[in-house]
């Protein structure tokens, strides 16, 4: 799930100031900066206590939170904004959750069965859940929610696609719901755990769907008190809440009385308000300030990785010269120094990456992590073998009178700031390849993208809680066409990869899934549709007085249910 509205000058202004004092020390290993433990095999494991409450907190108090961007709406079904990940958890609940190991676990559904043909899902629901308007959560509420997600009037950019195989549902009794799918689709349970598919009051959906945007009614631990766009929101605790996901081990209502959320686009201001105790918590800690925050006695920095696709430095258009030749794609991948890119963009916070799944995604296989690693000699060999042996006056490789040159399109965003674009250009030049950078407004880039008019596009990522993110990015079904949008920017159409990813959608057997997804990850390093550069990371920071923070197992973002304030702390 991408965040797209980042070309803000708030950020630029911040960087303007910071660039004058950016550290020029040699990059220390970012491994120590990432939460969790990265073992020698390349597998990341988080402490299980990151996901559940370890001791009871003290109720009371107001948590003052800052975030860089406003989602613009609380109707999460109609949104694809990245902030929905943590925002929706404040006012809404989901049907399902995940455990510490990524397995699907109960929330508003106590249990579920999947038919042998993988097309019928039966959900057994909790019978003690109410929305804040008094409506009961039941099978009808679930049905109404699924309908709202795919209702054309909702204009859902994400939720509708995630449940696209859903045909219809049957209410077996008040608390049993049967969902019928068009075809087997094993990611179904996973997507139902995502914040964009949260449960909204069925009464509100029926009677005033437009009001969800500003006055959402959910069954979550807090109730929205007030919301001013681009400014912030206040939430108050719901005293009768007692249905937090069992995995969180939290019982009863939230500890905090209130959450005050402020939207602060300026990075410098988010940092300084935290430092001066004007706020307690920031969901978008500026990477350039993390060194100072880590050095501070009163602040804690957390660095979490988003599951599924890491940030890409660029995606090749595999239909166009020169990237229709896989050897050229592979050479570019090997020519790009990811350690350097990660340092430029993350000030030592980001983890460099050469393979296609985030390290904490279920079924991630680290076996192929070094296949495309930075190796200038190998890159040069690849290009020589591909026949690019001659050089022109400027030092670029030439074949049949044509220079090895391509346009790299991009727009200013966290995965692809201009600094990264320029570094990619410089790295490619070292192996005799020319990149002509074209940074442009998002709308213009979208047009070029829709028209298929590009050699390579910089940036991009996709966050989801299943390796099915690979299907969304690299399956031939996900290519865009005049009537269909798609996120397979590489236009890759590889029968072997397609077969693996399709088979994974049909399977529920963990061993089979591991085999399929491992093979898919291996295949991707052979067909090289894109060049991953570093993990997509969430940096948050808070005062030490903030206790009991746990992370959402689905999105790896903060879950405020168990947070409390230590009033005695400095």
């Amino acid at each position, binding site marked *: 799930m991408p965040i797209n509205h980042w070309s803000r000058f708030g950020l630029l202004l911040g960087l303007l100031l910071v660039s004058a004092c950016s550290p020029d020390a040699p990059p220390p290993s970012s491994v120590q900066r990432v939460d969790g433990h990265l073992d020698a095999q390349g597998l990341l494991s988080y402490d299980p206590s990151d996901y559940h409450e370890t001791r009871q907190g003290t109720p009371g108090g107001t948590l003052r939170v800052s975030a860089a961007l406003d989602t613009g709406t609380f109707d999460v079904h109609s949104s694809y904004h990245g902030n929905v990940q943590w925002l929706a958890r404040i006012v809404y609940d989901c049907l399902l959750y995940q455990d510490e190991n990524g397995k699907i676990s109960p929330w508003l559904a106590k249990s579920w069965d999947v038919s042998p043909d993988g097309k019928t899902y039966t959900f057994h629901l909790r019978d003690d859940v109410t929305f804040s308007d008094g409506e009961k959560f039941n099978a009808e509420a679930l049905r109404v929610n699924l309908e709202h997600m795919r209702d054309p009037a909702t204009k859902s950019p994400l939720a509708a696609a995630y449940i696209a195989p859903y045909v219809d549902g049957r209410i077996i009794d008040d608390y049993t719901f049967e969902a019928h799918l068009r075809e087997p689709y094993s990611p179904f349970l996973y997507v139902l755990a995502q914040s964009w598919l949260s449960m909204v009051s069925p009464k509100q959906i029926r009677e005033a769907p437009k009001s969800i945007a500003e006055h959402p009614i959910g069954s979550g631990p807090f109730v929205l008190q007030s919301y001013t766009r681009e400014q912030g929101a206040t939430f108050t605790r719901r005293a009768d809440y007692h249905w937090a996901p069992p995995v969180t081990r939290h019982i009863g209502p939230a500890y905090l009385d209130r959450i005050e959320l402020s939207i*602060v686009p300026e990075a410098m201001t988010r940092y300084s308000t935290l430092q001066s105790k004007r706020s307690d918590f920031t969901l978008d800690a500026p990477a350039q300030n993390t060194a100072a925050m880590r050095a501070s006695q009163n602040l804690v920095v957390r660095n979490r990785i988003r599951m599924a696709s890491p940030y890409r430095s660029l995606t090749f258009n595999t239909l166009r010269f020169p990237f229709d030749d896989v050897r050229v794609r592979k050479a570019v991948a090997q020519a790009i120094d990811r350690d350097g890119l990660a340092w430029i963009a993350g000030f030592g916070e980001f983890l460099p990456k050469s393979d296609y799944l985030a390290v904490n995604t279920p079924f991630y296989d680290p076996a192929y992590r070094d296949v495309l690693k930075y190796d200038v000699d190998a890159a040069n060999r690849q290009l020589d073998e591909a026949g690019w042996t001659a050089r022109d006056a400027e030092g670029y490789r030439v074949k049949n009178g044509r220079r090895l040159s391509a346009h790299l399109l991009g727009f200013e965003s966290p995965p692809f700031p201009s600094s990264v674009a320029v570094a990619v250009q410089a790295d490619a030049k070292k192996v005799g390849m020319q990149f002509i950078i074209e940074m442009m407004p998002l709308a213009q880039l979208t047009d070029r993208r829709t028209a298929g008019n590009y050699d390579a596009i910089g940036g991009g990522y996709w966050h989801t809680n299943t390796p099915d993110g690979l299907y969304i990015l690299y399956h031939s079904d996900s290519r865009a066409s005049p009537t269909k949008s798609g996120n397979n920017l590489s236009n890759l159409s590889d029968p072997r990869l397609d077969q693996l990813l399709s088979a994974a959608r049909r399977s529920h057997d963990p061993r089979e899934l591991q085999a399929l997804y491992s093979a898919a990850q291996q295949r991707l390093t052979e067909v090289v549709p894109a060049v991953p550069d570093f993990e997509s990371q969430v940096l948050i920071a808070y005062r030490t007085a903030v206790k009991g923070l746990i992370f959402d197992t689905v999105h790896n973002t903060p879950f405020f249910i168990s947070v409390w304030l230590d009033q005695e702390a400095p």
Partner: protein
Amino acid sequence: MKRLAARLLAGVGVLWGAATLTFVAIHFSAGDPVLAILGGPDAIPTPQQLAQVREEYGFDQPLWVQYGRYVGRIAQGDFGESYRLRIPVTEAIGKQIGATLQLALSAALLAIGLALASAVLTAKRNPWVRRVASASELVLSSSPSFVLGILLLLVFSFQWPVLPPAGSNGWQTLILPTIALALPIAGMLSQVLRQELEDILEQPFIAMARARGLSQTAVRLRHALRHALVPLVTLSGFIFASLLGGAVVTEMLFARQGIGRMMLDAAVAKDAPVVLGITLLAALVYVVVNLLVDVLNGLIDPRVKPR
């Protein structure tokens, strides 16, 4: 009366022109509105959703039909619904305009106040005082609001935390953005005002007034200033434009709500109805300001009485 009616009619013409230009600009700028409505380039709407939205919003119609509908709706006061926020544009703007007005008004007052004070105090005074004043005005008028804003933040919020760096609730949050927005305008205005004032102080009627025994200050305040106000009023168009342009940057920098910030978000997301709504609002204010300037000029300077 007839003149007023003519001016009003011209105002409507200006609004219609602005609406048309914006419509054309948005239509021919990059980006598919259907994608903007369905969440942007990375969203994954289904083909049915795409077709449905195209039809619902009439994007499948010829351009002139779309234009006709658009003008028709605006004439009835219907500005449509924001693609991004999914609420009526009038409501979206209504919720943000208060904060912008507050900021613009206080910045305008501060800018005019500073300019008047500086002009009256320094015109035709000791050359050193004059030089220092005009040098600082030059620096201020050529400093963009965001540079001033960052400096103000660094000094008064971060180094010496006396004023809040962000937000738009309470008068404290208004102080820094007001100063950042007002100073460049004040610098520019006081240059013009001093020049004007100095020209006027050369006039024979000033010598007459002094000869009647009026003090230097009384002459400046009672006689010269009134004449110097004419260019100030005429410049209100410039003041207004600077305020609106500056508001975008200032609201971003100080995390204030307001239509400046909203305009930027809308433009990035290609939220055409909001962009159109704010453009028309700006055009409307411009027309009204110019009407008022005409009337005011007549009151201040009887020579420009309407014929």
